[in-house]
């Protein structure tokens, strides 16, 4: 399980992207997402793709690894694609008259598949893929603790004197640290069930659902046990929310971070611009 889910693990290479301040990377990620949402055509997407390829190349992490990050979500992407296609095709007949720039269309019963529908379904999937790859980039180049520090740093001004930012950051840090462990635990229980004649991989959908449901109790119990032990050890190490702390790693904002953020800041603006001019 841990091997399949490769998002969330930092891959150390000595690239410039690794050295960027996590706050810059998170901001860039938000801007990139905004640009993706705003972009509604192939030209914008091409621009975004080009930019992501440049950034990905700068990370010095092989392209293959990014493709592997997409793999666990391939069914979801297929689902999105088909959903868009079928939903679009179902309405196809209605749009048929309205659409004038059609290259081709194909009708089967109530469904009319048009090039426009196909194009928009492809667009949806491509956006999704870009978003996943970009998220993967963020986690491949930033350790979870740096990520949570980044989030904390960004939230702190918002939460004022309260401990909200610290709480959130600790929660995120622990979640990132322990979710893989919980998944592994679930995996082992599935194996124990398979050993007793209930092999998940051999099952019908309905049985699968029932089996997964049966995991809920032991995994939750396991999570609680872990959480309890964890809080005990946090307490024993003198941790108290709101107590003064020093930081082992200070976040340092360099000029490269500013440039990186600015580069991404023009994206949503550009997308908006193209949307209204094209």
């Amino acid at each position, binding site marked *: 399980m841990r*091997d399949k889910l*490769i998002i969330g693990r930092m891959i150390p290479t000595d690239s410039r992207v690794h050295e960027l301040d996590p706050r810059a990377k998170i901001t860039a990620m938000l801007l990139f997402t905004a640009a993706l949402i705003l972009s509604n055509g192939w030209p914008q997407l091409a621009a975004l793709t080009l930019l992501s390829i440049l950034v990905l190349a700068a990370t010095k992490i*092989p392209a*293959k*690894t990014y493709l*592997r990050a997409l793999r666990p979500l391939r069914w979801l992407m297929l689902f999105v694609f088909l959903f868009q296609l079928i939903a679009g095709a179902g309405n196809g007949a209605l749009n048929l008259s309205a659409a004038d720039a059609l290259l081709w269309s194909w009708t089967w019963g109530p469904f009319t598949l048009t090039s426009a529908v196909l194009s928009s379904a492809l667009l949806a999937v491509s956006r999704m893929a870009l978003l996943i790859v970009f998220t993967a980039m963020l986690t491949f180049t930033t350790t979870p603790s740096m990520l949570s520090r980044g989030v904390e740093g960004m939230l702190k001004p918002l939460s004022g004197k309260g401990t909200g930012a610290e709480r959130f950051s600790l929660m995120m840090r622990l979640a990132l640290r322990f979710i893989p462990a919980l998944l592994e*635990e679930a995996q*082992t*229980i599935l*194996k*124990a*069930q*398979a*050993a*007793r*004649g*209930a*092999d998940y*991989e*051999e099952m019908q959908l309905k049985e699968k659902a029932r089996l997964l449901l*049966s*995991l809920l*109790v*032991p995994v939750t*119990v*396991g999570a609680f046990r872990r959480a309890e032990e964890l809080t005990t050890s946090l307490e024993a190490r003198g941790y108290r929310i709101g107590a003064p702390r020093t930081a082992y790693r200070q976040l340092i904002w360099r000029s490269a971070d500013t440039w990186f953020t600015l580069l991404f800041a023009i994206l949503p603006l550009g997308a908006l611009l193209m949307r209204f001019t094209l």
Partner: protein
Amino acid sequence: MIGWMKVNARKKSNSEADESGRKSTRIDPATGGSEAAAPIGIIPAGNPQPTSMSEGDPAIRLTDVDYTYQAGSPFAAAALHDVNIRIRKGTLVGIAGGTGSGKSTLLQLLNGLLLPTGGSVEVLDHALLPNMQKPKLNTLRRRIGLSFQFPEQHLFEDTVEKDLMFGPLNFGLAREEARLKAVGAMKSMGLDEALLKRHPLTLSGGQMRKVAIASVLAAGPEIVMLDEPTATLDSAARRELIALLARLCREEGRTILMVTHRIEELMEVADEWIVMHEGRAVFQGDADELADRAEELEHWGVAVPEQFRCWAEWTARLPQLAALPLPRTAEEMAKRIEEAVRGFAERESEPEDEQQKESEKQPNRERSKAHA
């Protein structure tokens, strides 16, 4: 079938297999490569007398087994290399090794949770081969049970009874039969039937462990594999559990494979030992053969059991002990020592000097060298 005969023809004493096993790896692909290349579901390996439980009957045979996690990916990690193991029916086998030595992977290969990436795994009358289409394995899994390291991983229903019936029901028994099996399994593990109605997570640590094992026994497996069942138990509970396992083997005729990192606790009852180290089966043999290689144990990441230490200390003082097999229990060892001391005292009452002590150690050491 041919597969078995070929393997049988190469049958060797285990310690020999350790050294020459690798050589035969090289030869095998030339002669037997074709059979490995034709994976077609489960191949019944044609055991001539499936009903007989005679000593020589192999229950498990691993031939040149490799296993790599996530083969072909950037995260690929080899877990087993060239493992050759043969386990007879009705024996109690201890599997020792440090963390990461491949012990748990080995167990998961035996019931098809993992398929080998090289070599062949033959269990009872099933064969598991690399790249085979994932076969329906329930006929095999009913006969070979696996108890995982943490009991919580077996207990997901809301009563002990349901947990125990989970296996039998999956293997196609009717509810009533499954219920009877559950009761039987509780008896086998020396548990009170009253616990059947309890919620599994309200049991004590020791009870939970036994219930987890009972949940495996309920399906009536011929082979029972246990992954570190004694970890986190206190020493008295550990001893009790091992006595129960020995009973399952001796009285009910089951083959027991138990992974442990404490050789000491299983010494009295184990018929045979396998030591795993860095993904290889570096040793297979009985306790005496293991005692001869005691010096290597630390390197393999397992502690030298106290039985070996004490016996070595006494053989150093009383050289006549060196010829005897290793006594498994404290009582037996004391008896042997007593006999030797009495005999020694009768023959002569020479004062021991350093030089003599040195010479006494010699034969023992030479003996172990010869075996290594």
